[in-house]
């Protein structure tokens, strides 16, 4: 155990945790916004896969990771419009349509990958971009300021999204329609338009999250996300629909995962106990967040479609 508590290992563990957290943090931020407006999207995983493939394939063909990111976000927006049409316009049941989107994303990316790419070919991915000066700070620099730009972006988006939800009129509308859409409606707030917006934004985030994953590992393969989209949804619940808590949850999950990895790498744990330990990130994150946030309840109108009678 002592070999774990050396500065370099701890630094690597924390930096690794931040890297691991990035994709599901991005997805969870978007999903938080969507749920605050009363829309549940279980299709995050599927949209992440689509975003991941889009980013990978674009980068493979054009050699440009920036183009890859842009395409992933754009495809996310399209998926958002589809989901908004299903749930906001058609009033489809949100849980089922989300699962539909997930299955679609899973099958569709697999199909495209096999047709268009075939064998997994590595792409350059987004390289590290150490932040000048800050990355020179001993230890802290390596933990926080020596990552790829998408990592910075994800964490920068936390205060931005917090600000949007809590300090803008759009955010006020979102909070209102997720709770009491009828009240917002009587004040002239368009419930369905606002929800369409939040859904599109949430899906753009999911697409970006997929891109962050594919460009970090520099490859695509079937089911690349391996459940990260569902982790993101869980984080939204256990983070009690608050951006900072969702981020804390994502970080906790990432750091515990990377701690477990380090322990195994260092041979601190092995055999059956290491299999058990693989569940630690999920269990620990849920426990902590539940303890912190148990008094907050879900947006009252979550999953409830809105329609004015008459």
């Amino acid at each position, binding site marked *: 155990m002592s070999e774990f508590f050396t500065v370099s290992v701890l630094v690597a563990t924390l930096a690794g945790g931040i890297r691991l957290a990035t994709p599901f943090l991005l997805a969870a931020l978007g999903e938080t916004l969507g749920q605050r407006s009363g829309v549940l999207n279980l299709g995050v995983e599927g949209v992440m896969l689509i975003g991941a493939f889009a980013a990978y394939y674009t980068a493979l063909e054009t050699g440009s990771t920036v183009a890859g990111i842009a395409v992933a976000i754009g495809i996310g927006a399209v998926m958002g419009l589809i989901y908004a049409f299903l749930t906001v316009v058609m009033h489809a049941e949100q849980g089922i349509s989300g699962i539909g989107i997930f299955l679609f994303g899973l099958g569709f990316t697999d199909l495209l990958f096999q047709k268009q790419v075939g064998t997994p070919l590595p792409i350059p991915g987004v390289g590290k971009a150490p932040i000048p000066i800050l990355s020179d700070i001993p230890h802290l620099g390596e933990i926080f300021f020596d990552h790829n730009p998408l990592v910075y972006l994800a964490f920068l988006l936390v205060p931005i999204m917090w600000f949007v939800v809590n*300090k*803008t*009129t*759009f*955010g*006020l*509308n979102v*909070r*209102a329609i997720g*709770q*009491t859409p*009828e*009240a*917002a*409606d*009587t*004040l*002239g*707030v368009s419930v369905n338009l606002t929800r369409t917006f939040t859904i599109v934004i949430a899906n753009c985030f999911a697409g970006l999250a997929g891109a962050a994953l594919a460009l970090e590992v520099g490859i695509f393969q079937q089911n690349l996300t391996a459940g990260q989209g569902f982790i993101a949804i869980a984080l939204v619940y256990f983070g009690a629909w608050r951006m900072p808590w969702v981020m804390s949850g994502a970080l906790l999950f990432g750091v515990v995962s990377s701690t477990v990895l380090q322990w195994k790498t260092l041979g601190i744990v092995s055999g059956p106990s290491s299999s058990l330990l693989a569940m630690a990130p999920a269990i620990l994150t849920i426990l902590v967040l539940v303890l912190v946030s148990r008094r907050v309840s879900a947006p*009252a109108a979550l999953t409830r479609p809105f329609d*004015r*009678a*008459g």
Partner: protein
Amino acid sequence: MTDTDRAVPMLQMEGITKRFPGVLANDSVDLTVLPGQVHTLLGENGAGKSTLMKVLYGLYRPDEGTIRLDGEPVSITSPSDAINRGIGMIHQHFMLVPTLTVAENVALGLGGRAGLSDMRPVRQRLAEVSERYGLHVNPDAYIWQLAVGERQRAEILKALYRDARLLVLDEPTAVLTPPEVEELFVTLRQMTADDKGLVFISHKLHEVMELSDEITVLRDGRVSGQTRPSESTRESLAELMVGRPVELTRNVAATERGEQRLAITGLNVIGDRGNTAVKNFDLAVHSGEIVGLAGVSGNGQRELADAIFGLRPIRSGQIAIDGEPVTAPTPRSVRQRGVAYVPEERMVEGAIGDFTVAENLLLVDYHQPPYTRRGLLNRSAISSWCNRLVENYRVKTPDIETPTKNLSGGNIQKVVIAREFTCDAEVLVVAQPTRGVDIGAAEYIHERLLEQREAGAAILLISEDLDEVIQLSDRVVVVLEGQIMGEVDRADATPRSIGLLMSGVRDGEASASAD
């Protein structure tokens, strides 16, 4: 009056017709409102009052008819359209977001500088408006923290903040206490003094007589009369509404009080905000008596009723039915002991909006014969029973398969009452049974309550309506802050004696302070 008679009407609704599937909610209705006037809409539950106002507010599109504002024909297509034209509406059911603050509720939908929801200017202007109309409420309090009266004020502030010139108040007094109603009327008079036009809806005739300049009565979606307080009496108004003479006062014969049914000893219950909402409460209700529990709402009545019915855990103390203590009560176990409950929040606890009328009528008994046989619902038994209830309790609904949320507010109440009064309970806990219920239906509900009393039920009547409490109760118990302030017998129960207790003055103290 000649002055206002000549003024251009600020609102003219002409020939408004609105149909819902199976219902003609408004049938060629006319309504004219002059600036500086209170125009009251009267009518039974389901007469179409709220519908007419929702048409005005852009929530429903009329099938026929025209609306003129200041003489100009307009088409109001959405609430924001209505707001922009200076129309404000206080809805029958609160339209507030409980998780937002008062200021945020007010600012909702207004936009802000650079898209930011900066509350400072909102707070400032809100303070001015509050000051002018005497509507005091903390702008930074969350709605869920507020008492009902404060919520009502927040609701009104929302409209005034938007410079509404024409304000619709759909049963604003239904949930208010008498002192709160007085305060509200002061505010409303200030508004008419500012030349605002008001449409006022209420089932309480003395309020209507006190406040109105003009009265339009609706029956079955049609205008059944137009009058003024000076030209009418409460009886004549009631007759216009119901279409037959209505007995407004009633003499209740004393009955023999029987055995003790419900006994509450040393009860303490924790409220939503962590406070002790019910403190060391002792109360007994006997077979064949109605005990009225009077008090301004929010003084623990709700928590008490919830606790009796197993909806809220008990901190300490005991509840016994027929001498046997109820341990770990749940709604089902309490019901099996013969307790029925008409909750105050009928939309939340009493009925399920998405269920049909029939399903709501059977919520309690559905699993018993004859409605269920061998696990299967018996359709014909159900529909004949439900149709009988709908007829007896005069629930206005196209059919028993209509979703309950489409009924008017008062009719939802009747559905809950019909269900609870017909399940042969020995103990009845009834909260605000006639809140928002029209005169005819209130009369009917009162008769049914007395009938239950005759039949030997022990009834705990929780009500803020002093007239109702005094008329029906054999004893009146007054609560304040979760504790019993005093008890008054039928003979001594007067609005004054109870009103004093409600405001916290005991007999002895009253005379002491008179010294």
